[in-house]
């Protein structure tokens, strides 16, 4: 998932709906992300009175590495790190008829979820549709006692009644903007021309 600049590319990048993106603006750097994750780890253990019954489940692809990082931070403040799984929600999306969504990794839920607290972890929270699909997918893996949601960036524009429990950074954006979030930082870029109606931007795993 490392953002590798493509030197061979000429001209500005092209958004999927047409138009042109501006150069990215740095919103958080790696140090900022690291501090935010440490705070979120504290919030998770505080809310759940420890992490004995907690399972971290990263959403493929952007949430997986964040879930692992959160587990590592929790291991620093708790006797043992919680188990970490990953969930690919491709098969549960409600927009499959509109767009081809191919799974990027095999779902791996290492423990029985029934009776546990599942913390879903993702990079960017946008419309909420990925999270909705994730809740459906979780259903097929058992019946957790509770499900909580941790995101590195909440950029707003929810289309469903979903709210995060743990947030790295609230980042007000417009629909024409695009957000990328990872361990190495958070960037924002703006579509400068050719705004394509109501489809909004597509970013990370938070594809509408």
């Amino acid at each position, binding site marked *: *998932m*490392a*953002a*590798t*600049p*493509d030197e061979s*590319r000429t001209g500005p*990048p*092209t*958004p*999927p709906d047409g138009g042109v*993106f501006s*150069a*990215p*603006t*740095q*919103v*958080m*750097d*790696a*140090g*900022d992300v690291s501090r935010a994750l440490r705070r979120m780890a504290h919030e998770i253990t505080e809310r759940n009175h420890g992490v004995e019954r907690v399972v971290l489940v990263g959403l493929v692809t952007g949430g997986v590495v964040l879930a692992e990082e959160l587990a590592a931070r929790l291991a620093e403040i708790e006797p043992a790190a919680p188990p970490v799984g990953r969930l*690919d929600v*491709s*098969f*549960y999306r409600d927009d*499959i*008829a*509109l*767009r*081809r*969504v*191919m*799974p*990027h990794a*095999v*779902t*791996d839920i290492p423990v029985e979820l029934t009776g546990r607290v599942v913390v879903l972890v993702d990079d960017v929270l946008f419309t909420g549709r990925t999270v909705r699909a994730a809740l*459906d*997918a979780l259903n*097929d*893996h058992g019946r957790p006692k509770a499900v909580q949601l941790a995101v590195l960036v909440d950029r707003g524009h929810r289309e469903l009644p979903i709210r995060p429990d743990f947030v790295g950074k609230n980042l007000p954006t417009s629909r024409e903007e695009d957000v*990328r979030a990872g361990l*190495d*930082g958070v*960037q*924002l*870029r703006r579509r400068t021309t050719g705004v394509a109606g109501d489809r909004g931007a*597509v*970013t990370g795993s938070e*594809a509408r």
Partner: protein
Amino acid sequence: MKHLLGVIGQPRAMLEELLQLSDSFAEVNARAIPKVPALRGRTVATLFFEDSTRTRLSFETAAKRLSADTLSFSVSSSSVKKGETLRDTALTLQAMRIDAIVVRHASSGAPWQLARWLDCSVINAGDGWHEHPTQALLDCYTLRRHFGSLDGLRIAIVGDIKHSRVARSDVWAFTALGAEVTLVAPRTLLPPSLEGWPVQVSEDLDRVLGSSDVVYLLRMQRERQHEALVPSLREYTARFGLTRDRAERLADRAVVLHPGPMNRGVEIAPEVADLDRCLVLDQVANGVTVRMAVLYKLLAGSAADPHDAVGDEAWGPIRSGGSDG
């Protein structure tokens, strides 16, 4: 990718993509409730001009585990002979708003013709002696799960190659994925020309046996002895059957595959069919898995993959110490 018609000449990348996608569905199939809503609202029709309950059930199971609706259309050859052409039958089905047709036909090439006439996806579930692409995929998937990779595997395909769609598809899929294939059969059961086939040929199973990682046995049809292709099934078994004696001379890591249904006592001895190294039941289970992958690949969405459209390369490098703008 709109249709899956054949694997002959398909690039390695396409086969590998489907095998990799199959891993996701293997995970689904391992769950207590092996079902996902991925193809909800889609309709998959099986159109079998030739009976094959096994293949039809495998496709229908795959479709149902993806929450697609299924429709089964079996056409006895007699009703077709009454004057309805292949095209008529296909257009009738299309009028029912089908998203994909899974077709089995005794005539080579029939799925290619259907694909020319129809707007929906066409999946070849076996045509004549020509191709059986999902069988090839499930065979590859079975071997990949067992050995990790097909690269460098030595595979002997034994039996009636000439009349076998399984052999034709397997030869090209196995070799595309890096395996070496040897066909083992009497001259009468080989195609009239192997020009351009990436294979070696032997008439001596015993010489090939010890150095094979995989022995792939084909079904020996009883009719073949009446067509003077083999003198008798007894002689066939003596020369090309995987007898108990031959099974003992297999390499330690060697496995046995068969597309089913097996003729125990003809191409395979009853005891050999029950050995752990005989992966026939794995093949059946994997059949559902790879067919889920094929259906999903063909039917999930129609536009280009958004992951292709939104490339990470569109982003610039992260600068350290950037402002919190």
